[in-house]
């Protein structure tokens, strides 16, 4: 069987690799060093600075983006491993000038203060609502064997599911309210 393993380059190990991916609906090709994180590629090569670098260690959630619709930490992801993936950042959430309902709810509920964590909070919240719609349980779910619906998305569930996004201004109560309204219409 012919191997599809690419030969390991001998000369310049960190020579840029060409990567094709779709970012906010647009096909893009970038040349990145293997060590470039998706976060750095988005900010420095594609000028999408809405995604923030907080801890750069997977601890704060500020760099949250979606890959193929799933929320991930772009600081702990290599750009060169994203060939063919569909990336969505905070810049790609609005629709023809209209805010995404989660963005609008953050404005309505004052879900931020300094704003540094906000794009990560919103990207995380948008995907988290989809996870709940798909019936995913969380650590706040009493019986994981039971199937779940959006109606089960209590404030305790929202807090648990959003725990990967830290806000040092501590706007948590308003963030929870914003997400609860966007997800369930509950105010």
């Amino acid at each position: 069987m012919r191997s599809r393993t690419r030969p390991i380059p001998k000369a310049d190990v960190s020579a840029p690799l060409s990567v094709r991916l779709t970012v906010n609906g647009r096909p893009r090709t970038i040349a990145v060093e293997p060590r470039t994180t998706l976060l750095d590629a988005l900010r420095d090569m594609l000028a999408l600075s809405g995604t923030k670098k907080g801890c750069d260690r997977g601890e704060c959630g500020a760099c949250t983006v979606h890959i193929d619709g799933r929320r991930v930490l772009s600081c702990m992801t290599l750009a060169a491993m994203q060939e063919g993936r569909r990336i969505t950042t905070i810049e790609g959430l609005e629709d023809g000038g209209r805010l995404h309902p989660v963005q609008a709810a953050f404005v309505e509920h004052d879900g931020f203060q300094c704003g540094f964590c906000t794009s990560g909070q919103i990207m995380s919240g948008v995907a988290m609502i989809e996870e709940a719609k798909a019936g995913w349980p969380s650590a706040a779910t009493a019986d994981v064997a039971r199937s779940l619906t959006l109606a089960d998305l209590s404030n305790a569930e929202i807090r648990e599911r959003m725990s990967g996004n830290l806000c040092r201004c501590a706007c948590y109560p308003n963030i929870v309210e914003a997400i609860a309204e966007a997800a369930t219409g509950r105010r």
Partner: protein
Amino acid sequence: MHRFALSRAGDAAMAIAAHARDPALAFIAGGTDLLGLMKDRAALPERLLDINGLPDMARIEAVPDGGLRIGALARMSDVAADVEVRRRFPVIAEALLFAASGQLRNMASIGGNILQRTRCPYFRDGDDLPCNKRRAGSGCAALRGLNRNHAIFGWSEACVATHASDVAVAFAALDAHVIVRGRSGERSIPFGDFHRLPGDTPQRDTALERGELIVAVEVPAQEAGRASHYLKVRDRQSYEFALVSAAAALATDGRRIRSARLALGGVAHKPWRLTAAETALRGASLDDVEALKSAIATSFADARPLAGNGFKVELARRVSLRALQSAGARA
């Protein structure tokens, strides 16, 4: 990060051969632990081999006899959301859901999760403090340093670190097997033999050899599955590693324990199975709290707390008890 080369593996045999002949090559799947180690210079591979494209390794299969086979590339979130995992072994789903964050669970693979390296701050510290796990022979800064989060069982003078995985504790309690492929075929490692105690060689975490790839974790069918629970106690309510955690699974006749499985996290260099307690729990009533407590106590005779973590002994007993009682409530 330092400079390295990156390539993509198309088939497992070639990936294994490349790993076997190249000590500076590391596999990468989710990357959530490896990239952190590389940023902290606690791992400096010269070549990364992306194994995410390997076929048939992300499946979660409910085996007809009642067991599970979880592909090594299955993501934590997919395993936790799997209906059969949740129904057959709630302890596995719970252990996964109590770990990391939603974002990290979408990224991290099961194979990588059980291979994650310790969170000991001396090991992770970029300033190269004494750590035998990081640099053999350099000493253990935690032994007489800040060791509140460290081991109370099975540690050595060379290393007092704990293993941070939650789901590994559930796998240990359930007698899972790690299915590993090497150049000469597959072997099945009982979960209790997969992680090592530190001894004189804390730089080695597991029984994996160079040139071996985890392909799956298999959980055998058993009567104690549904009545199971994972309890995790930590410094904050969510998104934190365990101070102490417990995985418990029970088979019962009414309120009487027929067999119990009990393992602790956050207390040793590997998931710590309470085998003496399991034997002592046979026949005990779930309603007899004193009997449960004294059965659990039989596994604490060899507890050796460090200067900073004496509280973990009592905490671990109580966490064990409550995990058993919660599992019992599902029986």
